[in-house]
C-alpha cells in the first residue's frame, strides 16, 4: 500500500499480526468521546463489548442474520457485527445503554415493558434500537416491502401493523414475542 496516498491503519507484517498492530480510534459513544486501540479485524460489536464493557449489545449470530447487535451510527440503525470498529472512527454511536435520558426510559423502552415485548430479553436491546431508528425512517418517507405503492410518498400515519412487522423483521426473537413487539412499537410510534 502506498502510505502517501492512503491513510494506513495498522503496520507491520500481514500474515500474523501481533498486538503492535492495534490502531488508535476515537468513537463518540452515547455522547462520550472514547479513544481506544483496536486490531483492524475488531468488529464494532467486539469493541463495544470488550473494549468499552457495553455488553447490552449482544452477539447472537455474528453474521448479520439476526439483528441482536443493532446500534445506531450517526443516527442510523446498523449491525455492529458486520462492520469494523476502525471503519467507524470519528462516528457517533448510540447503544442501548445510551437511550435513557436523565434516568427516564425512552418511550420505546417503556412500551416494551408495558406490552411485554420480550421474554428472555437477549434480543431486546437490538429490537429496541431497531425500533427507535425505524420510526425515524418512517417519518422520513421511507417505504418498505409492505408498502403497496412505493411510488407514493409514505407518511407515518401509514405505519400499520403490517408495516411495523416488515420493518422489524431484521430482528429475530426466538422466544417469539413478535405480536407484543408490534404493539409496543405501534404505541410508541403513535405517541412520537
Amino acid at each position, binding site marked *: *500500500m502506498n502510505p502517501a496516498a492512503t491513510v*494506513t491503519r495498522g503496520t507491520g507484517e500481514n500474515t500474523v499480526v501481533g498486538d503492535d498492530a492495534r490502531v488508535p480510534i476515537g468513537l463518540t459513544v452515547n455522547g462520550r468521546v472514547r479513544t481506544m486501540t483496536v486490531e483492524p*479485524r475488531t468488529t464494532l460489536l467486539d469493541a463495544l463489548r470488550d473494549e468499552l464493557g457495553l455488553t447490552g449489545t449482544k452477539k447472537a449470530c455474528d*453474521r448479520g442474520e439476526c*439483528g441482536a447487535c443493532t446500534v445506531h451510527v450517526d443516527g442510523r440503525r*446498523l449491525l455492529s457485527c458486520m462492520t469494523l470498529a476502525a471503519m467507524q472512527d470519528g462516528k457517533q454511536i448510540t447503544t442501548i445503554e445510551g437511550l435513557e435520558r436523565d434516568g427516564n426510559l425512552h418511550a420505546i423502552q417503556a412500551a416494551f415493558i408495558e406490552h411485554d415485548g420480550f421474554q428472555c430479553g437477549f434480543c431486546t436491546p437490538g429490537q429496541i434500537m431497531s425500533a427507535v431508528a425505524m420510526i425515524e425512517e418512517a417519518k422520513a418517507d421511507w417505504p418498505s416491502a409492505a408498502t403497496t405503492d412505493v411510488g407514493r410518498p409514505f407518511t407515518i400515519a401509514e405505519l400499520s401493523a403490517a408495516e411495523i412487522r416488515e420493518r422489524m423483521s*431484521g430482528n*429475530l426473537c426466538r422466544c417469539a414475542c413478535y405480536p407484543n413487539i408490534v404493539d409496543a412499537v405501534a404505541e410508541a410510534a403513535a405517541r412520537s
Partner: protein
Amino acid sequence: MHPFLLASANDAATAIAAHAADPDLAYIAGGTDLIGLMKDRAALPKRLLDINTLPDMARIEALPDGGLRIGALARMSDVAAHPDVRRRFPVIAEALLFAASGQLRNMASMGGNIMQRTRCAYFRDEDDLPCNKRRPGSGCSALHGLNRNHAIFGWSEACVATNPSDVAVALAALDATVAVRGLAGERTIPFTGFYRLPGETPERDNVLGRGDLIVSIEVPAGAEGRASHYLKIRDRQSYEFAVVSAAAAVAVDGRRIRSARLALGGVAHKPWRLTAAEVALRSASLGDIEALKSALATSFTDARPLAHNAFKVELAQRVALRALQAAGARA
C-alpha cells in the same frame, strides 16, 4: 477473523493502482458481505482498502432524460427511499426493499450489492467443504448434494450456484449498465454482460479484474420503467434470499404489450433474462393469460433442474407471469 491491515482511500486513482498491484487487497464499502465471507474464511484478503472515503461516489442522480445514475457507494436504503427511483423505476425500489433487513440496507452499498457472492451453503461453510467457487478444483458438493436453492439455468458440472442479489435482477431487466474505472480508464459494461456463467471457472462471478472499481450504475430512461414490478418468493415473509424472484417492466398500447423486459433471480449464476419470452410477448394482450403463459414458456425450454429444485421450473414461470401482470397493472 484472520489478521489483516486496513487502510482508507482518499482518491480513486490511488485506490485502483493499489488494487491492481496487490492480489491480496480487497475493497471494502458496507462490508455486509465481505466481513461475512472473511468470518467464514471464504475470503482471506491480507489488506482491506476502505473506499467509503472516496469522493462523489454516493450520489443518486435523476438524469434529465428520465434515466438514473446511482453512485456505487450509495446505500441500498437511500436508493430505495429516493423519490425519483420510486417514481421512475419502482422495480428497483422494490427489489431493494425485499432484500436483507433495514439495518443491512443502511450499511450495504450498491456496488457491494451487485458484487455479493452466492449463498450456496457449501460455498459459505467455514469448514472448507468441496466447492470449486471457494477452492477451484475441489469439486461441487451441491451438484449431487442438497441443491433446492441452486440453479436451473446455465449451470455447469463445476458449479450450480445462484447469484443472490435482488436488485441485480431488476437492473438486468432494465438494461442498466455498470460504470467501471480501471487502470486504463473508465468503461461501461451492460448489466447483462456483467456476470458470468460458471463454466470451468466458477471462482469468477463477473467480468471485473484487478484494479477495477465500480463507480456507478446507470439505468437508461425507458417507457417500461414506471410500469415495473419485483416479485420475490421466499419461504418466510421477510429477511431471506429468494427461492425465485422476477423483475418485470412493460410498455403497452392499451392492454397490448409493446415491449416487455423480464429477468429472474434465484435460478442461475446471474440474473436470468427471459429474452425469448420478451420477443414472444410482443403484441400479446395483458388480459390473455394463456398467451402470456405460452410466451413465457419459450424461455424455459432449456431449463435443467437438479435433484431438489425441479419445482422451480414451474414456479419461475408463475412468478414471472404474476410479476408481468403486476407491472402491467401499473402501465
